[in-house]
Every structure is written in C-alpha cells, then in structure tokens.
C-alpha cells in the first residue's frame, strides 16, 4: 500500500487482528494491509499474500555470481595471464571451485537482502501511516489492520461497528473513504 489507507483499526493481539480481518471480509472489503510487531501465524494466508518471489531473484543472482567468477578465473588463467606452474593445466576446474562457490553465495545473499528491502518498499523513511496517533506501538505491542482507499465496500458506520464488535481498541478513518 503506497498511499495512506482509508481506515485503520488497532488491536491488542494477533488473534484479535485476525478476528477483525474476518469481520471486515464479512462486510465485503478486500483491500487489506496489516502492520504487526512480529509475524502473525496465519496472517499471510488470511490476507491472501502469495509466497515471496525473491528466492528466484536470489537464484538468478547466485548463478550470475558463480558463473561470472568461474568465467573470470578461466579468463585470467587461460587467456589473459597464463602462468605455467609445474606444468599443471591452465584450466584447472577443481581449483576454480572455491571462489566460484563463494561468489555465488555472496551475490545470492546480497540480492536477497536488497530485494527484501526493495519489494517491501524500503528504504522509505516517512509513510502516511506514521502520522496516525499511537502507530508508534505497531513495532512494540499493537497490531494494526488497514483498508486501502477505493475499496467500494467502505462504509463508515457499518465497518466501525464490525471492528468494534471484533474487539478493536480504536478505529481511525483517514478521510479517504468513498
């Protein structure tokens, strides 16, 4: 969710947040996001989030790193700067394996870190949700559920009642409702 959500609700536990999510789904809403201090078991499934695709990015980067390292070693030893050491072959595949392996790991790890940040929308030091009063507890012990603007089923009275029935501590409308 790049922009400010329309509606946010605060809960005091992960299971309560899941309850609020079910209540809003029953109201017909579908554009959800959640902000939690730690991963909640079952939340990803409840939000319908698919498995991250960053493993494929890391795999590609690892292959590039390993392949590049092998190619570079071959090119150094065979083409550009061949050194005869006791008559051993210039293209010594076993001797190239350690560096190939290390570079594959290094590139895959760097790709995993960078894609985790970029796909998660980081770094972005300021975000509209930080302006919500009490949101600073989202990294400590409060669980926030959000609904994006433009969800056609948004209805201030009905949604607020559903959330409060589900145990929301607070419901905040950010003025983006339709």
């Amino acid at each position, binding site marked *: 969710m790049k922009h400010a959500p329309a509606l946010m609700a605060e809960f005091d536990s992960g299971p309560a947040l899941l309850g609020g999510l079910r209540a809003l789904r029953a109201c017909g809403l579908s554009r959800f996001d959640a902000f939690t201090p730690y991963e909640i078991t079952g939340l990803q499934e409840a939000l319908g989030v698919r498995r991250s695709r960053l493993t494929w990015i890391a795999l590609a980067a690892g292959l590039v790193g390993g392949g590049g390292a092998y190619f570079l070693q071959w090119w150094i030893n065979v083409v550009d700067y061949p050194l005869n050491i006791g008559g051993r072959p210039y293209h010594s595949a076993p001797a190239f394996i350690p560096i190939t392996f290390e570079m594959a790991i290094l590139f895959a790890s760097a790709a*995993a870190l960078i894609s985790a940040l970029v796909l998660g929308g980081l770094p972005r030091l300021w975000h509209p949700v930080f302006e919500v009063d009490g949101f600073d507890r989202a990294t400590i012990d409060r669980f926030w559920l959000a609904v994006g603007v433009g969800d056609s089923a948004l209805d201030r009275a009905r949604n607020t009642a559903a959330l409060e029935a589900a145990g929301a501590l607070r419901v905040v409308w950010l003025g983006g409702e339709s």
Partner: protein
Amino acid sequence: MTAVAAARDDEVLIGRPSDGALSDQLLSTTRRPFTRGWKVAFAICGALTVMLFAMVTLTVMRGIGMWGNNIPNAWGFGIINFVWWIGIGHAGTFISAILLVLEQNWRTSINRFTEGMTLFAVMQAGLFPLLHLGRPWFAYWLFPYPSVMGTWPQVRSALPWDAAAVTTYFLVSLMFWYLGMIPDLAALRDRAHTRARRIVYGIFALGWRGSAQQWRHHKVAYLLLAGLATPLVVSVHSIVSLDFATTGLPGWHSTLFPPFFVAGAIFSGFALVMTLIIPVRKVFKLENVITPRHFDAMAKMMLIMSWIAAYAYIAEFFVAWYSGDRYEVYQQLVNRPTGWYAWAFWVMLFCNCIVTQLFWSRRMRRNLKVLFVVSLLINLGMWLERFEIIVVSLSRDFLPSSWHIFVPTWVDIGILTGTLGFFGLLFLGYLRLVPFIPIAEMKQMRAELVATSQGVQP
C-alpha cells in the same frame, strides 16, 4: 527438584511477559545508565586497542621482522591468531543460521548476540593476513582488477580462495545480522526518548513499519540467508584449512583437515559465546530470556565438538603411523607428544578433550561457574591447537639442519592481546547501541509458546 521446577528449568523463556514488557526489558539495554564496571571494562579495552594500533604501526613501519616469524617458522602468531579468531566466528553463524534451519527455538535468545561476536571476531581475524602480507598497502592485489601491470592473481593457489572466503563470510554475516535487526531498530526508533536517537535509529531502520508485505519478504530473505550461510560457514574454515592441507609439510598434508577445522571452529566459538554470555546475562539481568536450557544445550554442543576434536587427534596419529612416511611418523608420534613443545600438546589435550567430559553431567552443564572456567580453558586449548598445527609442524620440517625453535616477540604478544582488547571494545559498544537479543523474534516465539500451551496448532 520438583517436577514443576524441573519443567520450568527447561524453558527457553521463563514466564510469559507481555509484548510490551518484553520489548521494554530488551530495549532497556540501550538506555540504562553506564555503570562503573562497564566504564572500567571500556577503558581497559580502549587502552589495549590503542596498544594494538601502536603495534600495528610498528609492524608496518619496521616490517614483519618485528614478529618472531623466521624460516622455517614462516607462519607464527599471525596465522595462529587468524585461524583462532575466524574459528570463533563460526559458532555465531552455526547458532544463527544452522539452528534456524533446524528449527531449534533455543537459538532465538542468543542468535544476535553471537552474530555480533562473529562480526567482531572476523574483523580481528582479517587484520592478521593483511599484516602478514608484509606490505599491507598492496592487499588489493589479492582481488582481481584490471591492473596497469597487466597481471592477475594466481587463482590456483589457496590464498586467493582464502581472501574470497573471508570477505564473503564477513559480508554475508553483516547482511544477515542487519536484516534480522531491522524490525528491532524500528522498535528502538518508536521508543526513542530523544530526537537524536529517533533520527539515527530511524535512518538505520529504513522506515520499517511491519506491514504484511514487508514481513512477507523479510521472512523469506531471512530464511534464505540462513540457508546460504549454512554451506558458507562450512566452506570458510575448509578453505582456511586448505592453506595448510595443499602444502606437503608433515603435519599439514592431510585430507582430514577441512572437517577437523570446521568442528574445531564451532567448538571454540561455542566456548567464547559461553565466556561472553555468562557475565552479560548477569549484568543485564536477562535470566528470564537466557535460561539454564540455553546453557545446557550449548554445553552439549561443546561436548559433541570436543569428541569430534578427539577423534581428529586420534585419526591424525593413526594416519601418520599407517602412512609409514618417516616424516609424518616423526612429526605426529615423536615431535608432538615428546618434543620441545610437548607441554603445549598435553595442555591442549587436557583443555579440549579431558575437561569437557564434565558435561556428561546435567548438573555441570547448568553450573555457571564450571561453564565459565571450562569455556576459558577451551579457548586456550583451541588456541594451542592452532599453535600445535602451525608452529610445532613448521619448526621440525624435513631437514634437521633447518630446524628452529619459534619464540614470539613482544610485538607478537602485544598484537594478540591488542586484538582481545579491540574485540572487547567493539563488543561493549555493541551491547549498548543495539538490542542484542532479537525482540521481534522473542515476541513471536512467546506468542507461539502461548498458542502451543493452549493446545492451538501454530
């Protein structure tokens, strides 16, 4: 001991503090007032660090002749300390990566602590090969770059492998450590009591807000980095051991070396974790998150690694005898147990194989005084093991006419002591700047423990 107390003793988290209480407790390590003990420790480590830089300056100005190294002992303290420090780092990765992949929940409380230990130990380790080059200002020659001299590194030698392995190890450990810490840096930002702290921690937290998208990618990347670090940690010390094993020297030329080195590395690393965590737990009153269960598990790991080391020592003897090679036989069966440095051999054997047998007893595995003393002895024993491999082997090579006893100089001893101080300085800073117990992971573990105890499948 009653059944209830015994069960409580086995918990990875004593009590079930609320998320808020747990966060406050674990964040408080960064904002408690500085105690006198901490200041004294910081001052000592700072002084040792200054000494380290003085010794390094001396080595760079006057050259490597300031050290005790001489032919045939071309590798003296420099390489012993390198292998010792980098080995220590391995337990950090073992705890944070391998135990994560194996779903051992006792790793959660101590993983970031040991990752910090890994990073700082690898920093100390990196110093030694750099200085050992003799002309450290040419260290970049180890990396392939299109130089105007038209030359390239010789990648069929084990030394560029080492450069690649250690650099990769440091960078991957750093990335893993940082990725795991981002949610906790955000917690520090949100609980900051001064504007300056809010800004600084806010920048390092990169704007983390714990959204479902962020957790989704974070989780996969964290597991993936653990999966990548698992073979990495095995490869790093294997490659270090190849620096030895690929040569023809009696005492080095052995296919046993890679697994022997990896096991020894994890052994010494667990010992240093123990040495550090016992005082830190007491000072920061972390008895509820670092419990007897953790000490028990780590002591068991040390016992296992000790047996692997013992097996390796026996295998070295057997292979030397079985090879029939007179140089190997002399090196392993005569020189080590009865030669000039025999005392080092017997002390090593006592520290690494004998004293650890105490850990067969559950009571000993949970006795902090015993654990602390034994962990110090293992640190010593593992340093002596590297001394045994490097100095003892080199001082008695093929030709008796070139035999020579190695004696360290005061610069050697100063640099070793200095790295201990520098490590301590970095670690003391680390304990006060960031939460060294992973808060988000602890809260998640607590939630899962609560769910399990209520009979809900997590």
